C-alpha cells in the first residue's frame, strides 16, 4: 500500500540536497529521475521555467495530441459532516444553506449539461453518509448513465465493496484529493468528521482500482502547505505508484490552488502563478502520460495559457452551487469560480490555440 511508500518518500524528500548543477542535463534525458523532478520543482530560474514549458508542451502534444477534454462538475448535495477549515462546504460554515437535489432535479441538471455537449460528468457531494448516502449516489449514477459516457464521483472515501457496487452501476472514474500528504498538517486542517481519517482517504484510490474503476484523479490543494513542493512531489509519487500498480487505469493529477479571494482562513502559502506553472510542467516532464487537469478555480489568463503547456483536461462553464445549472441561485458554492466563461467561449479559446476540444473519452458500453 501507499502508506509505506509515503513514509520512505518523506524521508527521501527531507534528505534531498538540492544542487542546481547540471540542471540543463535534465532536458536531454528521455526519462528523468525523482531527483531531477525535485530539482525542477525547486528551481527558481525563469530561463529554466521557459525550457520546462517547452519540454512539457512537446511531451503533451506527442502523447495526447492537439486535444483538450472538457468535463462538467455537478454538485448534487452540499451537506457535510467534515470540519475542513479551508472549505466552503465545511460543517463549520453554519451560514451556508444546505441543499440536496431530488432525483428529478439531478436529471434536469444533467439534461442541461448534455445539451451543452458534455459527455463526461463529475458528481460531487459533501461528506455526509446520511444526507447523501451510497444509495443516493447510486441513483444519481443510474440517471447519469442515460446521458453520459463517463461518470466520475468526487465524494467521501468509500470502502472497496461500495466502489464495486457503484462501478457495476456504471461509475467509470474516481476523483479524490488527499489535499496534503503531510499527515500532521492534515490533522490540523481537518478538525472533525470522517475525512479526518488520513489513511482511509489515502488508500481510497487502491480500493477503487481493485473494484475495477477505469480512471483515477488525485491531487493536493495548493495553499495549504507552506512547503508546496512537498505536496506536489508526493502527489506525483502517488500517481506514479498507481500507474505502476494498476497499469490499465488512467491516472490524472489536479493541483487545485486556493485563490486569495476565497480563503476561509488566514492562508500564508498562496502559490504564485510562476510556481503553479512550474509544478504543472515539472509533473508533465516527470510523468509523461499522466492526465493533468485544471478547473475553473483558475482565472482566464492562466487557463488559456495552460492549453498546450501540459494540461489535458478542463472543466468549463462550471457551477459549484447545488442546482446551479437549472436554478438561478445566489447561494455560495464550494469555491469561487474565477473563469466564468461559457462552454462555447472555452471551445473558441481552445480552437484559437490550435487545439481541438473533445467531450468524449470513453465509449458507453
Amino acid at each position, binding site marked *: 500500500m501507499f502508506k509505506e511508500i509515503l513514509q520512505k518518500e518523506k524521508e527521501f524528500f527531507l534528505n534531498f540536497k538540492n544542487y542546481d548543477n547540471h540542471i540543463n542535463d535534465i532536458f536531454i534525458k528521455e526519462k528523468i529521475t525523482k531527483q531531477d523532478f525535485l530539482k525542477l520543482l525547486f528551481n527558481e530560474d525563469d530561463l529554466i521555467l521557459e525550457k520546462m514549458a517547452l519540454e512539457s508542451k512537446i511531451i503533451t502534444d506527442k502523447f495526447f495530441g492537439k486535444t483538450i477534454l472538457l468535463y462538467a462538475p455537478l454538485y448534487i448535495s452540499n451537506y457535510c459532516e467534515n470540519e475542513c477549515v479551508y472549505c466552503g462546504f465545511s460543517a463549520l460554515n453554519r451560514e451556508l444553506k444546505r441543499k440536496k437535489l431530488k432525483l428529478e432535479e439531478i436529471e434536469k441538471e444533467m439534461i442541461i449539461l448534455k445539451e451543452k*455537449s458534455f459527455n463526461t460528468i463529475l458528481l460531487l457531494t459533501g461528506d455526509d453518509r446520511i444526507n447523501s448516502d451510497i444509495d443516493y449516489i447510486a441513483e444519481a449514477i443510474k440517471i447519469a448513465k442515460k446521458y453520459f459516457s463517463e461518470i466520475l464521483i468526487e465524494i467521501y472515501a468509500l470502502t472497496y465493496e461500495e466502489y464495486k457496487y457503484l462501478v457495476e452501476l456504471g461509475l467509470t472514474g474516481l476523483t479524490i484529493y488527499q489535499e496534503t500528504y503531510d499527515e500532521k498538517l492534515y490533522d490540523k486542517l481537518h478538525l472533525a468528521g470522517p475525512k479526518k481519517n488520513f489513511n482511509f482517504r489515502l488508500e481510497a484510490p487502491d480500493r477503487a482500482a481493485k473494484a475495477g474503476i477505469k480512471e483515477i484523479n488525485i491531487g493536493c490543494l495548493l495553499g495549504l502547505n507552506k512547503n508546496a513542493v512537498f505536496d506536489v512531489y508526493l502527489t506525483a509519487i502517488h500517481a506514479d505508484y498507481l500507474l505502476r500498480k494498476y497499469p490499465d487505469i488512467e491516472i490524472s493529477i489536479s493541483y487545485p490552488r486556493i485563490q486569495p479571494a476565497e480563503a476561509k482562513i488566514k492562508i500564508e502559502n498562496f502559490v504564485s502563478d510562476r510556481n503553479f506553472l512550474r509544478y504543472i510542467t515539472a509533473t508533465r516532464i516527470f510523468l509523461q502520460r499522466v492526465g493533468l487537469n485544471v478547473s475553473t478555480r483558475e482565472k482566464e489568463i492562466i487557463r488559456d495559457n495552460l492549453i498546450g503547456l501540459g494540461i489535458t483536461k478542463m472543466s468549463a462553464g462550471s457551477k459549484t452551487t447545488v442546482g446551479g445549472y437549472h436554478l438561478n441561485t445566489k447561494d455560495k458554492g464550494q469555491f469561487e469560480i474565477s473563469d466564468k466563461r461559457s462552454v462555447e467561449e472555452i471551445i473558441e479559446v481552445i480552437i484559437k490555440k490550435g487545439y481541438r476540444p473533445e467531450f468524449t473519452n470513453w465509449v458507453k*458500453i
Partner: protein
Amino acid sequence: MEFEIAGKKLKSRLFIGTGKLPTYKVIPEIIKKTGVEVLTVAVRRINPEAKIENILDYIPDNITIMVNTSGARNAEEAIKIAKAGSEIIGTKWIKIEIEADTRYLAPDNEETVKATEILVKQGFFVFPYITPDLITAKKLEKSGAAAVMPLGSFIGTNKGITCKTLLRPIIEEVNIPVIIDAGIGRPSHAAEAMELGADAVLVNTAIAIAKNPVNMAIAIDMAVKAGRLAFENGILAEREYAEPSSPLTDFLK
C-alpha cells in the same frame, strides 16, 4: 503498386490516424493531396451529439474508415467497442487496440488474439495492433485477421522503426499484409518501414502535431511511395567494407 487488403484494392499504402489532429477540417485536404484511402477513427472519440466539429462530416464516402478500439482494456471491452463503432460508422474494418498499460500504451497481444478470433467469426475485417511478436502474428494469421499491425516503436514516441529485428521475421513469415503502426515520427521512418517490406504504414502523431499537418502528410506519403518503389526494385544490402570495382577473382578467367 496496387495491393489488396480485406478484399479491397488500394493504391495508397499510407493509412492515417485522426485522434490527435488539431482540427478535422484538414482531413479533406490531406486526402486530396495524398490520395490516402484508409483513415482510422477511435470509437471513443465519435460523438455526433456534441456541438463541435464531427469527424464524420469531414470524411468523404469513398474513404474506408477503420474504427479502433482504443481505451479497451481486454478482449471483452474491445469487442463491445468494435461493435458499437461498426454500427455508428457502418464499417466492417476494425482495428483492435487493447492497451493494458497506460505508461507505454503497450498492446496486450494475448487479449488481442482472443478478440480477433471472435470478431473474425462474426464477419469483421480485423486489424490487430500488436507488439511485434512473430508467434502472435502467426496466430492472428491463422485466426483470419485481415492484416497484422505491429508497432515500430511505442505510440507517440516518434522513434522510428526501433523494433526492426522483430518486425523483419513477421514481414517474411506471415502471409497476410503487415502494416507498421506507431512510432513513425518522420518521413524517413516511413520510408524505412516500406523498404523493410511492410505492405503499408499507419501514421497519426507525426502528421497531427506537425506545424502544417497537410504538408507533413504529403511528405510522409512521398516517403511511403519512395520506400515501396525501392523495395519492389530490390534494395542492395549494406556492407561494412568497400567493394572493389575490379573483381578479386578475375585472374581465374
